[in-house]
């Protein structure tokens, strides 16, 4: 049954996942080409100088991609459930409600993790070839909050979609905007380095919220 449920979730998100994956790889490829052009035109030393001494970040165009990916995967997975309230059927599967929700969330989060791992891996390999270990650390510290925003946005989309009332959906959306804003306060490279361990806790904190939406849905909350 668990396999069947996972297969259903996979089927819903497969097409969107492929599109987002290709978009992510294309974006990364474009950024690498752009950086490569800079190497040829001004040389590596100038590029290092710009990054080290002028606090520029060459992968800054990736900033909102994880957020977009989280929203897209979330919508692809949960909007079909809410059309004609099909989630009722899902919740009637011979599994514990908690297991069903956890499996659905786990499938979405894992597919995002795969997406993000591919992109971060590409960035790190590229950075390791052309830059020193200090750059790799700085790149990672700068990008990690963006990818956490991706997971957080996915979890909030699940919460908002499953929520049965529009009024509360709007409040949830405002809550989501404020929470996600926390990781986009500063664009300065490494700005989050002192609180990175706390930033990692944001998606963990947000994860149970979907269960409340499920509970409200089951209780038949209305406007």
């Amino acid at each position, binding site marked *: 049954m668990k396999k069947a449920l996972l297969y259903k979730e996979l089927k819903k998100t497969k097409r969107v996942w492929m599109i987002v994956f290709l978009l992510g790889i294309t974006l990364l490829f474009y950024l690498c080409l752009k950086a490569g052009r800079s190497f040829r035109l001004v*040389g*590596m*030393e*100038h*590029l*290092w*100088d710009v*990054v*080290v*001494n002028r*606090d520029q970040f060459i992968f800054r165009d990736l900033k909102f991609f994880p957020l977009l990916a989280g929203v897209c995967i979330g919508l692809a997975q949960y909007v079909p459930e809410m059309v004609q309230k099909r989630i009722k059927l899902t919740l009637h599967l011979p599994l514990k409600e908690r297991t069903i929700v956890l499996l659905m969330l786990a499938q979405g989060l894992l597919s995002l993790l795969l997406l993000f791992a591919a992109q971060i891996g590409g960035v790190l390999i590229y950075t390791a*070839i*052309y*830059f*020193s270990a*200090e*750059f790799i650390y*700085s790149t990672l*510290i700068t990008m990690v909050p963006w990818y956490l925003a991706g997971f957080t946005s996915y979890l909030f989309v699940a919460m908002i979609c499953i929520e049965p009332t529009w009024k*509360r959906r709007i*409040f949830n959306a405002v*809550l989501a905007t*404020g*929470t996600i804003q*926390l990781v986009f*306060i*500063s664009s*300065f*490279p*490494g*700005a*989050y*380095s*002192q*609180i990175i361990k*706390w930033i990692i806790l944001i998606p963990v*904190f*947000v994860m*149970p*919220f979907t*269960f*409340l939406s499920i*509970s409200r849905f089951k209780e038949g909350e209305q406007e």
Partner: protein
Amino acid sequence: MKRINSLIILLATLLLAWGTPALYHIITDKAADYAFTYYSSVEQSFCAISYDDEKEKLVRKNVETGKKYTESEFDSILPLFYYRQLLSDGRLPDTIGGEAISPREIGLKTFYFRNDARDKNKPHIPLYTLFESMSGRVNLEMPGDFFRLTNNNIEFIDPETNTVKHEKSQNFMDAFNRSGFQFPAKLVAGNPSPRKAYDEGYFISDDNNRVFHLKMVNGKPFLKDTGFPSEVKPVYMATYEPDDKSFYAFVFGQNQKLYLLTTEQYKTEEIPTPPFDVNTDQLLIMANPLYWNVNVTSDKGKEIFALNAGTKEVVDRASFPNKKKENRIGSLLLPFEVGMEKSTSLFVTPSVKWGTYSALLANLFFALTFFFICRIKKYKKNRFSLIWVFLTGIYGFVACLAFIRK
């Protein structure tokens, strides 16, 4: 589910405690209005330019006597600040305060050094550019490598190949070994800009708080212990390239004192400053051949010392307290403020600023209003929410109303 709802209310409250004050400050904040102040070598007192909001014009006056000046008169009483204007008008005196001073000397000994807390408190990739200090060229050229200081050595990296330059690294490492430098380095200060007039390399404090001077001279390492007093633990250093090449750097000690590392065999001079914290306050030194104007701007206001440029003794001082008042509505409504950014740091760090006791009254009002709303709308009894609203005021009130379980 009750616990999850409580988590949502907690998150919403914190976000409101962050967003509401931020919005409030965007609407109400006014800049601290400090007049530009400079010590007059003619009047022997501070003179200031400020903007008169009522008359909508600039007012130039002597801070002590209150005497007002026209623009032309003001140029004359601050000849070391407006020397180019006076030179252009043919009004630059030959002697100021009994001392003969030429325009060239004024140009050489005039500098402006500004240190903002953000210069220190910012993320940085620990790689450094070491220029050739005696290239014989007017313009500095990029050296073709960057150096890093690890826990036990110095390494030069070639950016073209992303590999360590072993021979150069070894040459410099030998110099570090010879000089008795104790790794790891605690502080590294230098100016990596090739646009500066000349290069004096880096000042590095070692594990024993000794300050070393590192340069590259004709491709070879130059590393020397400056003899900076080791009992003064440097917390920050800022190099500067004055035109007269009289000093290398400003060193900020753990004792909240400022030192000047001079080019005269690394002699250290203590620079008297108003009370100053390098982590929060702004320092501005406006120097001329006769006086140094040392400005410290903090939350409390702006304080200025005028120092004798030769002896660095304080000859005059002035202070301008921060007149910015907390808006009444804000202090009444907002029990506390959550901040994620500081004007003194480029790191994102959370902080909480507590409000005044008067906010408790507002909190009580919100708690009572919440209680009556719950009764009228027949919501479930929830003591937690009521206490939460009393503790967090307007933030908890809005969060609980939005996310209460009915």
